[in-house]
């Protein structure tokens, strides 16, 4: 919840800021800067890893010359900075290179997985966001009441359930015992919508559990903040009824922080879902990257990392823009 104050504060400080367009452009510029930083970080990080892809491909059986040959073939002998530049150059030309492990083009490898990940994220968002917002908002309206306290408890409790535990319990109940839902989420192409729903039910439920609490708490925090403002009191004195009070008066002003909260939670849905993808053997991006790390397939690792980072930055950017739009001081000057 405390993250919310950060966001609220951020919102407040924006009042003196230059016009919207400038701000957006600045954010984009910063994002690009960050992307670059991440690319360096990722590259450096992967350099730290012991053992290299040649080892991984050939294994212990590899004779020194075989290793040397393969390393040369994979340009592993070049100095790190040179390989980095090559990679960056390629990236700038929309060419992420080829997997060191199976020679397939990164684009095709990542492409399918990315689509899967996005689908999963989308489904989860559609389910979680409305739910979390409703709970957060209602908790804010009835703050201090028993309901509020219960929500507070539950949200913490849900946060503290290990994902894989929830996932496994769910599978045992709904897949193994009741046989209502599949234990795997390998969605075949051209699956019917019903099949789709069944396939996604369990992973989506698990993920929702993971991000729901955070989102709800931050929404509540943001809203409580505006609900205690004197223009809301004024609205009450005008005879505005609770529903309208929240929807017309409080929410628009809490939009910025709420959007930010949602963005933060959603950014988890691409990179943070390794466990879900593993348990339901869902062919997503996170699992791909974990594989890539263990097979030391650096181009793949880097590509994935860049995608995650970009996704995060995009989300935050969108949230910020929403926050800016929600603030007339910036729209009209």
């Amino acid at each position, binding site marked *: 919840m405390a993250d919310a104050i950060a966001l609220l504060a951020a919102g407040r400080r924006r009042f003196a800021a230059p016009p919207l367009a400038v701000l957006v452009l600045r954010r984009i510029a910063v994002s690009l800067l960050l992307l670059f930083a991440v690319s360096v970080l990722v590259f450096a990080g992967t350099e730290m*890893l*012991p*053992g290299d892809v040649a*080892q*991984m*491909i*050939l*294994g*212990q*059986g*590899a*004779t020194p*010359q*075989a290793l040397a*040959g*393969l390393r040369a*073939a994979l340009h592993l002998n070049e100095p790190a900075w040179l390989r980095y530049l090559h990679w960056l150059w390629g990236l700038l030309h929309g060419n992420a290179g080829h*997997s060191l*492990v*199976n020679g*397939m083009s990164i684009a095709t*490898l990542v492409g*399918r*997985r990315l689509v899967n990940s996005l689908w999963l994220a989308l489904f989860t968002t559609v389910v979680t966001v409305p739910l979390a917002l409703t709970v957060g908002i209602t908790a804010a309206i009835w703050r201090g009441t028993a309901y509020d306290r219960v929500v507070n408890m539950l949200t913490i409790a849900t946060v503290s359930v290990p994902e894989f535990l929830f996932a*496994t319990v769910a*599978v*045992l109940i709904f*897949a*193994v015992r009741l*046989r209502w839902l*599949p*234990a*795997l989420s*390998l969605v075949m192409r051209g699956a019917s919508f019903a099949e789709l729903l069944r396939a996604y039910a369990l992973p989506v439920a698990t993920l929702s559990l993971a991000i729901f609490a955070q989102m709800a708490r931050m929404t509540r925090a943001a809203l409580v903040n505006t609900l205690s403002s004197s223009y809301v009191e004024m609205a009450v004195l005008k005879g505005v009824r609770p529903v309208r009070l929240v929807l017309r008066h409080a929410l628009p002003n809490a939009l910025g922080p709420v959007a930010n909260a949602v963005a933060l939670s959603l950014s988890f849905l691409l990179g943070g879902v390794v466990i879900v993808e*593993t*348990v*339901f*053997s869902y*062919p997503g991006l996170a*699992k*791909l990257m974990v*594989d*890539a*790390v*263990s*097979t030391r*397939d650096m181009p*793949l690792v880097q590509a994935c990392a860049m995608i995650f980072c970009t996704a995060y930055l995009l989300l935050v950017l969108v949230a910020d823009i929403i926050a800016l739009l929600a603030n007339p001081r910036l729209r009209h000057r």
Partner: protein
Amino acid sequence: MSDDILPTLPGGTAPSVDLPAASRRSLLSMAMAGGLITAGGLALPAEAATAPKRGGKLTVAGYASSTKDTLDPAHASNSTDYSRLFMFYNGLTVFDRHLNALPDLAESVETKDAKNWVVKLRKGITFHDGSPFTSADVVFSLARHKDPATSSVVRPIALQMQEIKAAGPHEVRITLTGPNSELPSLLAIYQMVIVKDGTKDFSKGIGTGPFVVKEFNPGVRSIAVRNPNYFHHGKPYLDEVTFFGITDNAARANALLSGDIDIASGITPLATRQIKAAKGFAVLNTAAGNYTDLIMHLDAPMTGNPDFVLAMKYLQDRERIRDSVFLGYATIGNDQPIAPSNPYYDASLPQRPLDLEKAKFHLKKAGMLGSKVRLVSSVAATGSPDMAVILQDTARKIGFDIQIDRVPANGYWSNYWLKAPFTYGNINPRPTANILLTLFFQSTAPWNESHFKNPTFDKLLIASRAETDLAKRKQMYAEMQKLIRDDAGIGIPVFISDLDAYSTRVKGFYPIPTGDLMGFNFAQNVWVDG
């Protein structure tokens, strides 16, 4: 499981005991005498006597899955890869359930001196793309393993084939560096399957095999559909096989129980309880001779002390390991790598017991009692963390303190195995005892885990290859087993069974002791009923 990282040299145990030695000898000598192994196809197992049904789809999950998945035989390095190879390719020979290497693409494999071999090929076989199968393809497929650029996993074995040349469209002559009567077995190794001459891109999986690639997506899944003009008449039985890896053990078992998949390979002993409890499911137990061994470097300060090594061997609570780690799905080992199911297994070799007194005695002698030692274990070496805990627990009883340092599976094989002086390894079955010993115990062996250097042993090993008399050979193997049991820095408490769980609607599913999933060759042998 170690497979996904530890490159596996292929194979299985030598012909199993239930095959009368006589018939074996006759078969072999026949070959020696220039007789030939006729293409009898695969003998149908007894329990599969019920007529196979055609049609139906099967969904199978292995335990390994990563972008490393490949259809290139030279790089296949784990169970799921092997299984795929046998869906799309054939070898010149193939193992039956008794580990006889029977001709497959070959019509016959002949030799007079166990050094120069003539392989006659079946005629009229076509690849999936319609092009005919000829000797050129064989030469290409075998020779490429020798090329360093291929970086083939089986290069050391391929190098035994000094010369591979075509003699006419349907005959290949192979000259070995030295006599080796086991060439038919070597050719049955899964990496030795035949690909099309000049193939560069293997992702299409163009072979002669029972199935054609419909989809292959590394780290995701593969879909194989019936090859209508497969040369084994009537096979395969299935229309389609969807095959992928589920790396999470619990998830794999649950996927089977929920009916999402029909076969789950490499399930944990724990899961078997749950599966046996459920109706309509069964467990296939393959005693292929896989083992997780305690490794002590014989040239390292502490582990180098022979008394320490003996003490550790006496501290192995083999029964407890079998029962609580593998829940009984294992057979007691005797600190030597040849499994009881192996004809060369020397039953007369006394079983080393759990003996705290002897252990204590040797530790005292080594002056190590009361001292500490660091033991590295990892899930990468199947069951080793739990085996370590048990060893630690037993050692505590005689006041010897073992500190377990468990390291992540990720990177274990490159960073700890063969490097740490006191650790665990996991060794997969090999097609022949000879290959196994060559790879792990010969002084010059690439994977000589305990740095075991013994001239007598090396001599015996070389000699055994050329030795054609079974009895003599057995004698040699017995001596080698004793040497390893007493002197090598290796503790082998148990041999671990490979466990596959399957839905009982899957028929014709029986163990072939080169590994799980019928020695990875289930696809063309099973069918579904109901």
